[in-house]
């Protein structure tokens, strides 16, 4: 029977990134996917007639350009297209538009508050500062602060140097920024509720915290780290939906001789004498390899794939304590036309961008309060995007695909499993919310797919449907992601690695965890690395 150098469990974008880099280094790699399609949460699913749904993730600008380039993804068919526009509507009856032109954006803000205009510039520069600080850390392995190894000490020194480089004022501002709530952070800049509501969305997306909860300001940054062609904070999506991303990554895997098997769910990672020997599929088939990379989250890996005996008590305890609560839902719509938002002026093209519906700043927090009680938000925050206004490939001509991200939605409803009736009620509440702002919306809906965290968990294995493969809270970042001892992409057994968003630097379609993990594996094998480091901006 064939023995592989490396088996990657799970064909999410990070698993594929990992496999592609390993293949590129000359290793014999097999990727195993339990579903009959690849991509994990990076997919374009054909679920209704000629529509393609990016039915989990729907944006790609966090994806590291270094990976894009070094894996030649363009050659494999990936085209990340930027879009402009976007807006937020709240119950104030007005809207706040997003414009790529700085002066137009300023004028838009001035409409709502004459003093917030300049504050917006200050805000932007502050964010740019933090992004610039944090981005070089994405394609690096975090140090272990308790270790005395040269590498860890050296990495700590690097971090220290970066901190000091910020200077006293900015370092202290950053420390504060890192721990406050997004509401408080925005309060220091803005007075307009609409502007704050517009900005706060990014800080709660996928996060089981409210806009007034400490720690959410950082999540904001996590969503600003992306860039498209050097435009930091710009957003884009792959032409053809997110499936084009995983398709291109799979192309890169195959180009370098890697194999990908679908409908091949892994049951167990087999371990002998403290060393990984391969995997056993759900079918009972055994495949041998010296190294196994789990692209699943820490809970699924250490509490599911690995025998508790092999994982060890400490790791099992840590994995149980690892937090991966689901707080969001997703709706995918096939539409007959474009919804008309009453707040928008006639002829506005803002709807081409991603737009947000939230009743007001307080609604975030009230929605979170409901989530804490196991209910979905009755007045949710919605992040919506109609990619077909920019990308003609995802729906029949004249028709549209709309993605709708819903915050907050519990993984289980008041402790009970989701049922089709509950999904329908949840979906109806979202549709009514949209219709409140775009009265023609209901008539446009041709088909809708409603996904709760539990549905997503069952389908693609993100625990509770947490989009980041584990919460992005201070206790689960850097050397604490997923937890101390396993934060350098290595599992507790020899030959076991992790490559998912459950590791540093965390979620979003970024590819960095997969790449970093490949670098670590190659380092252990003494093979010169094929994985790029941050290419920097100056």
């Amino acid at each position: 029977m064939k023995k592989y150098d490396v088996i990657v469990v799970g064909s999410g974008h990070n698993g594929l990134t990992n496999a592609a880099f390993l293949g590129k280094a000359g290793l014999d790699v097999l990727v195993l996917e339990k579903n009959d399609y690849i991509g994990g949460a990076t997919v374009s699913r054909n679920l209704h007639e000629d529509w393609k749904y990016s039915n989990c993730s729907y944006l790609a600008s966090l994806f590291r350009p270094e990976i894009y380039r070094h894996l030649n993804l363009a050659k494999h068919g990936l085209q990340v297209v930027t879009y402009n526009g976007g807006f937020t509507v709240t119950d104030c009856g007005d809207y706040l538009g997003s414009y790529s032109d700085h002066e137009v954006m300023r004028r838009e803000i001035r409409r709502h508050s004459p003093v917030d205009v300049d504050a917006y510039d200050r805000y932007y520069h502050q964010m740019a500062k933090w992004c610039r600080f944090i981005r070089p850390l994405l394609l690096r392995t975090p140090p272990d602060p308790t270790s005395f190894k040269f590498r860890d000490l050296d990495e700590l020194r690097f971090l220290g140097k970066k901190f000091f480089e910020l200077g006293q004022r900015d370092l202290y501002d950053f420390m504060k920024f890192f721990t406050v709530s997004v509401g408080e952070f925005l309060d220091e800049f803005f007075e307009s509720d609409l502007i704050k509501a517009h900005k706060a969305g990014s800080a709660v997306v996928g996060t089981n915290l409210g806009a007034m909860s400490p720690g959410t300001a950082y999540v904001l940054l996590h969503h600003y780290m992306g860039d498209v062609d050097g435009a930091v904070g710009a957003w884009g999506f792959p032409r053809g939906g997110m499936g084009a991303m995983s398709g291109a990554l799979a192309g890169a895997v195959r180009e370098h001789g890697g194999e990908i098997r679908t409908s091949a769910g892994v049951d167990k990672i087999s371990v002998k004498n403290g060393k990984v020997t391969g995997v056993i599929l759900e079918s009972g088939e055994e495949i041998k390899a010296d190294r196994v990379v789990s692209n699943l989250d820490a809970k699924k890996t250490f509490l599911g794939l690995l025998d508790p005996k092999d994982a060890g008590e400490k790791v099992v305890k840590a994995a149980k304590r690892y937090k991966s609560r689901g707080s969001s839902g997703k709706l995918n719509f096939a539409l007959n036309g474009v919804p008309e938002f009453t707040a928008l002026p006639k002829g506005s093209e803002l709807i081409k961008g991603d737009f947000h519906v939230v009743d007001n700043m307080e609604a975030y927090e009230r929605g979170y309060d409901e989530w804490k009680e196991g209910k979905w938000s009755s007045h949710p925050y919605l992040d919506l995007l109609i990619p077909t206004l920019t990308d003609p490939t995802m729906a029949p001509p004249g028709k549209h695909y709309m993605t709708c991200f819903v915050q907050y939605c519990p993984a289980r409803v008041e402790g009970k499993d989701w049922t089709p009736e509950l999904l329908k009620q949840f979906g109806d509440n979202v549709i009514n919310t949209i219709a409140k702002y775009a009265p023609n919306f209901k008539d446009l809906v041709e088909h809708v797919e409603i996904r709760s965290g539990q549905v997503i968990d069952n389908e693609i294995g993100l625990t509770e449907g947490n989009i980041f493969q584990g919460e992005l809270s201070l206790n689960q970042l850097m050397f604490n992601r997923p937890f101390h001892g396993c934060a350098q992409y290595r599992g507790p057994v020899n030959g076991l690695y992790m490559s998912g968003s459950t590791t540093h630097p965390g979620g979003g379609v970024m590819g960095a965890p997969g790449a970093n993990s490949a670098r670590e594996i190659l380092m252990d094998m003494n093979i010169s690395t094929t994985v790029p480091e941050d290419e920097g901006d100056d």
Partner: protein
Amino acid sequence: MTKEQNKTYDVIIVGGGHNGLVCAGYLAKAGKNVVVLEAEKQVGGAATTAELSYGKKVSHCAHFLNQLNQKVSKDLNLSKHGLKLSASKLATIALSADGNHLHLTKDSATGGGISEEDATNYKQFMALMHDYAGTLGFLLDIPPMDVFNMDWDDKKAALKLGWKLRFGLGAEKMSELLRMIGMNIRDVLDDEFDNELLKGALAFDAVLGTHTGPYSAGNFLTFLYRLAGGNNGSVDIPEGGMGAVSSAMAAAAIANGTEIRTNARVKSIDVDNCAVTGVTLESGEVLIAPIVVSNAHLQTTVLDMVGARHFEADFVKRATDIRTRGAAAKMHIALKDVPEFNGLSKDDLKNRLVISPGQQELERAFNHIKYGEVSTEPMMEISIPSLVDASLAENGHVLSATVQYAPYNLKGGWTDQAKAAFLETCIDRLGQFAPNIRALIEHAELITPKDMEDEFGLVGGNWHHGELTLDQMLMLRPVPEASRYALPLDGMYICGAGAHPGGGVMGAAGRNAANAILKGDQ
């Protein structure tokens, strides 16, 4: 008045709160000519004893002594100056509606239907927490490190911290601390325990006096903080109420030669040529000193006393950005007799009683203040000090409770009706555990966060002079430029709870400030 007639001092301390008195005590002990100016008729600020009704006295704001800095107590010899404890090492009793209460001491948990496993875990958990508190505790006694310009003391402190973390705790516990340090208390407790009553009571400690609920990230650290000050987390009651602590501190200061002036409200702190010159009292009297120390909130100091124009703008902005929302009200009740609590003996009532039956309930109580509402089912920390100190009530008893949550900015404002309504809510809540309480009430009153601001100058009603959260701790407290007690104005210092290490009747801020002044930091 001409300059020659104005009295001259080495140091003027504005505000006779406990930190001001401690600061004065240390400075005077070092030979400085110090005056403390207190606006009210008695010193003590929020640590005072007040008359509730005829013959009955209560600790006005703070009511337990659990963080009094041991160095302060020793250096200023507070026991010699009259500080006595009427009770110490009080247990915490977490009240349960069914009368099966949970008794907690430093290392044991009994009752409340607690499982053996939880009881064992509690012991281990508290030992670990005391370990952590012990590791970090020394940071309370020194000024926050100035990481960009480390002096010798800072370098020593940094090494000490590193050593304590890595070798004192060991890699395992250190990494666990690094994981937990930013967490919310709820996740920490859910990881450890099953018993809701236990979790509720411990979570209450983490949120007490803060504007957070159990789900708010960062309050694990406030939990540790409570254990770090004072005598290993022992909860004590001073004889004569909290005013006795202030009196002892004042006596110590006076014994060292400090002049204390009450009814001396400061109108302004005076500045000439970018340096402090002294203060002007409301009476018009001018006092001269090259050093002025403010025991007041930084916002009050900067905006009202010194004036924003004597500081650079970014500093002023940062000072106004300090979050300083109070979330707790104080309830005082004069009782005809000892109240009966279901399932508690009279002896049990001497302890610290906590109403916080579970984390979810606590979080729900917190939800309200985010929107400017009061909790419908408030949580409480209750003390009946007259059971251990008969001097507080000639007849009958007094009960004090810290009630959470009550917002500072109540929607519609703290009108008399709003206050009365919330007082009723609180008494009802108490009645759930002590059914006969209503019949025993002679007099009841409520001090809202707004009252705390008006009466004690606690801006926003926050008794820490600024919320104790990660982003407002150590070198970020109260703002980076003032974290070493010296403000960016020659001769101007702060010594109040707004400075590191924060509030609680601790005295550490006053001590650290005095040290900074003596060292000549600026």
